[in-house]
């Protein structure tokens, strides 16, 4: 039998949606292994988040609530997560900045194998394996982890968010494991949060991404389109590097991975590193003045035009649709 431990992600008093994707994985893994899943929450002031987590169908919700865990640091979280993980067959978190930072440390601490950013769980005869993208999404590997404990992160866009149910899981406090020397040599200084009033990039059903071509007019051009569609805004690396928008908007191999119903690539050439982050979108629209741009090889609807003219026209058309 094998039970699953979901390391939940929590921020501003609430569970993050990344957690709900990890729970969906946990349900599938628990079914394949004939076990159950628990959620583990770490932080300080977790009462509300624990109540929320208790609605996600877990066998139990484990809570490590302590002032020393108030700001996330891998050095202080890892000992507690690893201590609890020893009783489980699989430990999972979403492949968010948090999960990618923390879980490899858990794997190292428990001498376990680690599969990152998985998009699918496969099961055969009570054994599980994982599918994961490699080479910027140009190949998929199916792998199994050979250690007793298996540590994985899951790609949020590949696992639908679990919905809360009617039952309530038991909530249990767990002990905090003492942190090692590392914790004494790292200090949380500050978080420069990017203000975002739009939907989360990784959760939006429509994403509009802009590239280098937008220059300083990035928001001036894209905001009206995002407004009329209720969309999230994303960007290519070139647009982020040039400072036209926040780095946090980057979509791609090394940025966010999105798979919305509708994706707009505006003034983006379509480098493989960008495609890695948006190729699984249901419908892809591109606006680029170069008819040979590689982005058109994966585009459903392409508009070869100057974006500075085409985007405002598109906004007008969409507005007439609304009225």
């Amino acid at each position, binding site marked *: 039998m094998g039970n699953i431990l979901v390391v939940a992600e929590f921020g501003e008093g609430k569970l993050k949606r990344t957690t709900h994707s990890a729970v969906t994985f946990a349900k599938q893994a628990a079914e394949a292994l004939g076990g159950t899943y628990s959620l583990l929450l770490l932080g300080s002031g977790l009462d509300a988040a624990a109540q929320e987590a208790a609605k996600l169908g877990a066998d139990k919700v484990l809570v490590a609530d302590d002032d020393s865990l108030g700001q996330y640091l891998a050095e202080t979280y890892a000992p507690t997560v690893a201590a609890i993980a020893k009783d489980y067959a699989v430990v999972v978190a979403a492949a968010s900045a948090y999960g990618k930072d923390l879980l490899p*440390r858990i794997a190292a601490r428990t001498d376990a194998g680690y599969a990152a950013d998985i998009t699918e769980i496969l099961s055969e005869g009570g054994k599980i394996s994982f599918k994961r993208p490699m080479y910027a999404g140009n190949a998929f590997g*199916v792998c199994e982890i050979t250690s007793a404990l298996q540590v994985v992160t899951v790609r949020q866009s590949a696992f639908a968010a679990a919905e809360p149910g009617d039952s309530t899981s038991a909530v249990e406090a767990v002990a905090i494991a003492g942190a090692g020397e590392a914790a004494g040599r790292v*200090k949380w*200084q500050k978080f420069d949060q990017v203000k975002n009033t739009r939907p989360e990039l990784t959760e939006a059903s429509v994403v509009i991404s802009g590239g280098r071509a937008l220059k300083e007019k990035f928001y001036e051009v894209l905001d009206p389109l995002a407004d009329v569609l209720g969309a999230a805004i994303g960007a290519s690396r070139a647009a982020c590097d040039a400072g036209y928008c926040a780095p946090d908007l980057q979509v791609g*191999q090394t940025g966010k991975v999105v798979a919305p119903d509708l994706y707009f690539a505006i003034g983006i050439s379509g480098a*493989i590193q960008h495609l890695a982050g948006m190729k699984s979108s249901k419908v892809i629209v591109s606006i680029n003045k170069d008819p040979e741009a590689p982005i058109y090889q994966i585009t459903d*609807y392409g508009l070869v035009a100057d974006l500075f003219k085409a985007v405002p026209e598109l906004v007008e*058309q969409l507005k007439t649709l609304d009225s």
Partner: protein
Amino acid sequence: MKILVALKRVADPDNANKVKIPADGSTIDTAGLEFKPNPFDEYALETALRLTEDGTKPKVRDGEVIVVTFGPADTESTLRAALATGADRAIRVDANDDQLDGLLVAKGLKTLVAEEKPDIVLMGKQAVDGDTNQVGQALAELLDWPMATFAATIEEQEDGLVVGREVDGGVLELSIKYPAVVTVDLRIVSPSSVYSTKTDRSFKYNEGVRFSPLPAIMQARRKPLDTKSLADLVDDTGLKINYLRFEAPPARLAGVKVADAAELVDKLKNEAKVL
């Protein structure tokens, strides 16, 4: 200051869409692709060079930069290139890619760290062939060292570093004391992202990584390059992750071109039904 930089060579990332998967799914065939250093590791090397110099005098090294790779004999050319760029010494740990996983590389690095005693281990946040993003974190845990992953800015202090990390929702600043592990993200090679205590804050680097002048390439041939075996560094060289097969991604075909915004909206509404 002594810095160890982990450097992996990978099949040309810009042509990763040319990898082939044979029908039996037994391997990822990179034949015909050139090998290049992992871009993030090139950024890590650039970062190490910036941290061991006064930006206005890049020929004078204030400290030692050692580059290390785990790979077969032909990865030595990648190490020579790093030596030409400014690293002082190189170490190759002999192993083929299929004999390695992230934890094993981390364990090997741990032993090298015990031998070399660097103040910082710098590396890319991920190798762009496996796209795993594991080794730096694993090494920090094995050493019980603090870490800063996804670094976009680094400022050297007397006894440590202040690092700006690119995370979801913004930039998180940590201060870490030596010795420590740092993994770097893309924007670490921007003009004002790395400052040693020697470099004036008004100094601006060129965007990107530095190139090696021809004489340096000649000199690099005389810089030390040691070879070690994996078994010398790690007791148990078994893999914890086993690839059963490989698959090509689902094909995605090019669609149609539309004439104007009006036709686009019509198609999205009536054909794709996404509006």
